[in-house]
């Protein structure tokens, strides 16, 4: 990473969300890398950027189409790469042509000079990397936003070489592993489709049961069914959807409606309030296991102290399953990993003895395979190995500001706290330096609303309202207000909207319309 010539940071604030990754980006910048930042907020990186694309929330696709159009108009594209590694370029060219600078300026609010300079810096760099975050995916067009980023990288051939490519910063410690290991409705562990009879058969043989060939419901769909009275029982492991899901009231209604709810967690949360049975969880310091990080590196987690509740989650699942008539028994999590290695090819070479010193990056198919650091060096993971351009159109956010709700609420994280805050709020010192939620509001908006720094204000959306103190700061641009979701006494997600990406089901956390009133 320190060798990057141009870094394009899009919808990501690593100084707050991924502080250690930000250190490598800072090193690259100190080594002379040019920096483009696409973010509606004036973040640490935006302040230091060569070009800050201060786009309106929800205008990612218009922004990226506009940049690609500038690149093509100037002949800055990588023609050799497009010819040898991609398909569908003409369709893309025709689509982005509709995004001339006048239109893109109007849709994004970003001045044309900045757009042209960003296009030049990214396309003309020898090695340019795009790092993106939840500002891309947490929109109703999240998947398309990510595709638009891929279009840009492919047009410029900035992929498949060291210090190039696209890096998505994953949010949670084991969000990668949790997807890899199969708690997904359409895929068995290792992204192996439930619809594929041969793959299903492999698991049926190993597990000794018949597996349904129809995909199940996504979490958000299970909750929707609960509200309709159509869903009867849920086991929630270490998650707090009543606090962290968008449109939290809607979620709370669903959890109240389900017949039988089991929640396992370290602490009482918004979600445990709705439980029929609460099971105590064990923290990462109390159990053996592995986490897989955002670069697919499988690393050990080690038991350092006795589990507070007496046993860890893996033991609890085994006991419940056994009591339900499907016996599960393992002496140690390493035996579970051995079973995984036998069924999941990308984890095929993983065993605890190999992880003792350092982690291994999947795909690691065999015991003597060293793991894989860079993907797609010569072929993309599609039939034929060519990448396909996706012509995309600007749609905007599901909810846009209007007379009644004139501001855009952007939600996100700060460095000091983590998600629902149940852990960081209970860590001495952290609770002291950031004891409460502060909503960031632009000085001009604050003046118009007669709000001073530290004043209470009421923030309301079509779904709910809350009281919060103001932090007057130019980190928020005029018209935008920023809040985190770390505090249980300020449930930001009762404001966020129910719009979701139709493919991933990811809610539009990054943009909804709110009204702000001074409370003095």
């Amino acid at each position, binding site marked *: 990473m320190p060798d990057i010539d141009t870094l394009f940071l899009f919808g990501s604030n690593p100084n707050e969300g991924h502080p250690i990754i930000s250190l490598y980006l800072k090193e690259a910048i100190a080594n002379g890398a040019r920096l483009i930042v696409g973010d509606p907020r004036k973040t640490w990186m935006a302040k230091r950027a060569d070009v800050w694309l201060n786009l309106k929330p929800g205008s990612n696709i218009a922004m990226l189409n506009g940049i690609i159009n500038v690149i093509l108009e100037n002949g800055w594209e990588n023609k050799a790469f497009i010819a040898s590694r991609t398909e569908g370029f003409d369709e893309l060219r025709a689509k982005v042509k509709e995004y001339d600078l006048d239109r893109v300026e109007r849709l994004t609010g970003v001045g044309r000079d900045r757009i042209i300079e960003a296009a030049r810096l990214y396309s003309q760099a020898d090695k340019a990397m795009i790092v993106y975050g939840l500002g891309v995916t947490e929109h109703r067009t999240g998947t398309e936003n990510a595709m638009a980023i891929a279009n840009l990288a492919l047009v410029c051939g900035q992929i498949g070489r060291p210090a190039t490519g696209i890096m998505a910063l994953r949010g949670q410690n084991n969000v990668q592993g949790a997807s890899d290991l199969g708690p997904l409705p359409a895929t068995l562990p290792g992204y192996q489709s439930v619809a594929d009879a041969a793959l299903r058969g492999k698991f049926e043989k190993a597990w000794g049961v018949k597996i349904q060939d129809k995909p199940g419901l*996504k979490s958000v769909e299970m909750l929707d069914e609960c509200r309709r009275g159509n869903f009867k*029982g849920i086991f929630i492991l270490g998650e707090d959807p009543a606090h962290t899901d968008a449109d939290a009231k809607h979620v709370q209604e669903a959890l109240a409606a389900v017949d039988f709810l089991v929640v396992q967690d370290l602490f009482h949360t918004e979600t445990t309030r709705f439980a029929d049975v609460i099971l105590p969880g064990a923290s990462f310091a109390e159990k053996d296991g592995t986490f897989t990080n955002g670069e697919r*590196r499988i690393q050990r987690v080690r038991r350092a102290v006795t589990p507070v*509740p007496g046993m860890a989650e*893996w033991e609890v699942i085994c006991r*419940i399953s056994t*009591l339900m008539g499907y016996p599960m028994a393992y002496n140690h999590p390493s035996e579970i990993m051995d079973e995984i290695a036998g069924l999941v090819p990308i984890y095929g070479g993983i065993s605890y003895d190999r992880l003792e010193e350092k*982690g291994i990056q999947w795909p690691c198919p065999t015991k003597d395979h060293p793991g894989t650091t860079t993907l797609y060096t010569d072929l993309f993971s599609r039939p034929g190995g060519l990448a396909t351009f996706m012509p995309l159109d600007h749609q905007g956010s599901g909810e846009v500001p209007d007379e009644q709700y004139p501001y855009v609420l952007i939600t996100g994280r700060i460095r000091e706290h983590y998600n629902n805050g149940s*852990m960081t709020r209970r860590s001495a010192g*952290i609770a002291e330096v950031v004891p409460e939620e502060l909503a960031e509001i632009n000085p001009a908006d604050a003046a118009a609303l007669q709000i001073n720094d530290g004043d209470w204000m009421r923030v309301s959306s079509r779904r709910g309202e809350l009281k919060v103190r103001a932090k007057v700061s130019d980190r928020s641009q005029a018209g935008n207000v920023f809040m985190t979701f770390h505090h249980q006494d300020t449930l930001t997600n009762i404001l966020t909207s129910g719009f979701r990406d139709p493919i991933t089901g990811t809610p539009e956390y990054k943009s909804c319309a709110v009204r702000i009133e001074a409370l003095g």
Partner: protein
Amino acid sequence: MTSPATIVINGKEVQFTGGQTILEVCRGAGVPIPTLCHDNRLKPYGGCRLCIVEIKGVPRPLASCTTPAEAGMEVTTESPRLTRLRKTVLELLLSNHPNDCMCCEAAGNCGLQTLAYRFGARLDRFPGEQWQLPIRQDNPFITYEPNKCIVCGRCTRICNEVVMAGTISLVNRGFEVMPDTAFAKPRSLDNCEFCGQCVSACPTGALTDTKGRGLGRAGDVTKVKTTCTYCGTGCNFFLNVRNDRVIRVTSDLNAPVNHGNLCIKGRYGYDFIHHPDRIRTPLIKEGDGFREASWDEALTLVASRFKALIDEFGPEKVGGFSSSRCTNEENYLMSKWVRTAVGSNNVDNCARV
């Protein structure tokens, strides 16, 4: 990068790569060289002069941390002259250092203590003026004892070079030089990220973690290497455990992802583990509240209720939410449980929300 060439270290030929310093080549070859101001996370500094080596044809010893290796160099890392010079350097440092290892937080984890012991440095060789500055605890995380500072600059360099926070720098001149915040203002979020990187870089007891003070020193703890539970970066660190309690987090300088760097959450976000609010026993809803139950009772109830719902409404009416916070093994088991004991595909994790 040029092609591999060799230098001779203590009579043995060793390969090196262009751009490597003599210190890097020596340490790579397993030849120990004492340092105090060096930190792999930082640029070479050449401040402490303990890493001096003799190079054939060069009249005076050179700092190995700032001298690039050149093909054909003949390097000597141990000699009576080097030992004498290193001992003198240490004795000069000790001339302005409190002699309180017996109650110092860093004892057992102090570069100065280790090297003073190794070289048999005397505390009283250079008697003279000593700093008499008060201990500073102006924030919840970082204790500063300026009297123990040897002005190696590791704290200020990691703050500016690596974190780029600009919280502290070396202030004053001459004998008065010390690391400090601007205008000696207390550390707060206005001027500090509280990542504790400066503490991890400090080779003495000048900067220590406030929360762990008095709870156990290096020799009292078991260090358990693990992976952070917060964001998806995958930083490794050591949980320092004493009497079945985590009392501190320390850097793992060999960690492949973070190389010993940590943020406020990784280094200081551990108290939740032993927090009194932890749920300790299963709880079963009763009326408007919950009553405590044994694991046997709770799990029997859970299993029988799920089983009854599956029997009455079918497996497709039951499901599980797995967790990005749990281990791979637990996520696998959750996926397996829904597909076997329950019999549906209604399993998802919080990656999408």
